[in-house]
């Protein structure tokens, strides 16, 4: 066993359908990763990630699809773009994270942070209805739907009194153009899911 432990694992001998999928769908060649770890070194949230960006890339090489689609890091990644800018191979990790998030939801995996997904969905439904986001109603709906009625109440009132949370916002006139985009999104989600 000891000798096995010290024998490096040859990742190029591991079959990974996910790696092929990422290469085909996103045009990203994971094979160029040299595991330098600069992505994880720069990541603002690496200290709370269950799998750091470097590990995410290696898990794709290993084909560990289930692990990737259920990991917590998916929902606390900030999309701050530091990892891709530091990667000597230019691997677009934020794009991979987007792809994995989309795939996880489409395939029905329960996100580890439902509130994060709920917030994204509420924001998108705001755009679907009005074409623009109005922050005050969005925050209120989010707090009601998560049952956190008193969350940020004092802060909300302070911001409201400063005129930072107007109750009305602009609206797109040609809403049919915006709605078309959402109709095809919903059609995509249904077809795949």
């Amino acid at each position, binding site marked *: 066993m000891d000798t096995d432990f010290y024998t490096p694992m040859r990742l190029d001998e591991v079959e990974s359908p996910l790696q092929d999928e990422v290469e085909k769908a996103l045009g990203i060649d994971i094979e160029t990763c040299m595991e330098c770890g600069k992505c994880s070194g720069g990541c603002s949230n690496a200290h709370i990630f269950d799998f750091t960006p470097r590990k995410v890339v290696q898990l794709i090489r290993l084909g560990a699809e289930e692990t990737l689609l259920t990991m917590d890091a998916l929902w606390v990644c*900030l999309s701050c773009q530091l990892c891709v*800018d530091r990667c000597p191979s230019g691997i677009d990790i934020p794009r991979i994270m*987007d792809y994995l998030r989309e795939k996880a939801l489409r395939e029905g995996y329960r996100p580890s*942070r439902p509130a994060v997904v709920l917030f*994204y969905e509420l924001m*998108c439904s705001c755009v679907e209805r009005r074409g623009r986001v109005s922050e005050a109603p969005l925050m209120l709906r989010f707090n009601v739907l998560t049952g956190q009625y008193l969350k940020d109440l004092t802060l909300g009132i302070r911001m409201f009194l*400063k005129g930072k949370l107007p109750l009305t916002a602009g609206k797109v006139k040609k809403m049919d*153009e915006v709605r078309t985009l959402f109709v095809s999104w919903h059609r995509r989600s249904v077809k795949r899911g």
Partner: protein
Amino acid sequence: MIVAYYPGCSLEGVAREYDRSARLVCERLGFGLQEVPDWNCCGATAAHSLDHELTRGLSARNLATVGRMNLATVTTPCPGCSIRLKGAAMEAKKEGGAPEVMHLLQLLTEAAGTEKIASSVIKPLGGLRLAAYYGCLVTRPRAVARFDDPEQPRSMDRLLQALGAETVDWSHKAECCGGAFAASETSIVVDLGGQVLEAAHQAGAEALAVACPMCQVNIDTRQREVESTRGVRYDLPVFYFTQLMGLAYGFTHRAMGLKRLLVNPLPLLKRKGIL
């Protein structure tokens, strides 16, 4: 120079003072801003986290509208909007032409330049020590942003110096403030925003200057929470860089909407003899 102007949703809400000050400052520098008619939300982090095609579609519609305005350049004060629009323009350029997309800081520092910015100064911001905070998307990803340095940006520093202020050298210029997690995972914003505040404080800054509505909201509105979590009093006002330009150009603090900031900047400005 006539430029198309895409404000973005925050500029109609939490960041209205950014919109007002941006418009006034641009006018003073001779930029005629023409608002993009019937613009829609870019979808921000929410859309790109849920569906790639949706986020592309939303920005493509905006870019097409800009295209019909027959203007060479479109600017937006929001880095999130700007990076989405720049992405759309990169794709459109492959199939023909597309207008130049510039973040407002980029427009002012590249198209106007620091000399012109300095020449309009009436009331220099003498003695004000600022931490220029760029956040993520003004300069990243660099292949899309194509502006300044992705990790050690200097454009805003030079702009603030042209206004007569001092800027500090510090570590967190281009670190993330917690972005879209203000409501859904507040502890992340308190953690990362706290790191930014601590770094600015350590560097001896008296206030921060930002170019992003998310950065402003996160660092300003969560500052009390950060202070009680860390047990440190920072009391660092968070200005939009356009508000500081406006003050130096002789606009009143009312016109620049300084009272809308949660950490009150007026005592500091009075102490420095700026107000």
